[in-house]
């Protein structure tokens, strides 16, 4: 049983929030991955919903790509709402 695949676990802590990555685990298939996730990550009432995804199905950015992926956003301060002055007297903005 040492060849069980790895699964990533996402838990939604309560209604209205997003699922957040909680950790990973081993399981032979999706059904048991979900049950293992319940036992490992929600035994202290941490969640109301669980997703499991096979780790090998996740395409992730690599550290090598960091510069080209993320640096171009560094000098574009106009993408932040704080860049703009709010005109006085504007409601419902």
């Amino acid at each position, binding site marked *: *049983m040492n060849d*069980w695949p790895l699964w990533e676990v996402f838990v939604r802590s309560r209604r209205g929030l997003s699922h957040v990555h909680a950790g990973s*685990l*081993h*399981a*032979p298939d999706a*059904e*048991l991955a979900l*049950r*293992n996730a319940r*036992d*490992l990550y929600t*035994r202290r009432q941490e969640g109301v919903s669980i997703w499991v995804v096979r780790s090998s199905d996740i395409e992730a950015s690599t550290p090598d790509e960091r510069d080209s992926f993320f640096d171009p956003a560094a000098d574009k301060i106009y993408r932040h709402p704080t860049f703009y002055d709010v005109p006085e007297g504007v409601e419902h903005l």
Partner: protein
Amino acid sequence: MTPQFEYVLALADDALISAQRMGWWISRAPQLEEDVALANIGLDQLGQARSLLAHAGEVEGAGRSEDDLAYLRDERDFRNVQLVERDQSDFGVAMARLLIFAAYQAELYAALRASSDLTLAGVAGKAVKEVAYHLDHARQWVLRLGDGTEESHRRMQAALDAEWPYLDELFDGSWVAPELLEEGVAVDPASLREPALGRIMPVLREATLQTPEVLPAVGGGRRGLHTEQMGYLLAEMQHLTRSHPGATW
């Protein structure tokens, strides 16, 4: 021993001894994840046992606490069925037994929610959700091992054959006092047989397992008669309390 004390004690002992056996798997399960799952199941059962033992102590009215009842009784005073007390160091055996036991407990606790003993009804109301999960866990594994490889099928069938003789004792109602049934305190174990088997049989079919054709074991757990392995279990469970009376940490 009043009939009600005896009844609550028997249900408590089933849960307690099953929890003790389940605890054996901690650090020994085939995978870390399964280790946690079995520990969780054992803890659920231990929680049921604690509530039931505390209640039994109240019903008895002799001032015995849950710990007194768990740690200071001798083998002949335990009323659990023999199904739960025997060694289960084979994973297939553990899952076959859990399938049978959880199916029984699921029906028992569902019916006990309407008990006229309100504490019993309360414990049952909480436990019924826990047991549904235990049943599901056993089902998942029995399906995978039964309908898995040739080797896993053979071993799952052997495990089922080994546990099946102890199924009948769960549904033997001869030890339950009739007045408890009339007063609505207890549930007739015999009435649970059909619905419990209704939960077990479809799993066996789907898992391509044969219903074992075996003679029932002699039984006697409800009268304090236990198998050879019960003494070893109690020795391990009770030795700390008995060696150091009153110790706390």
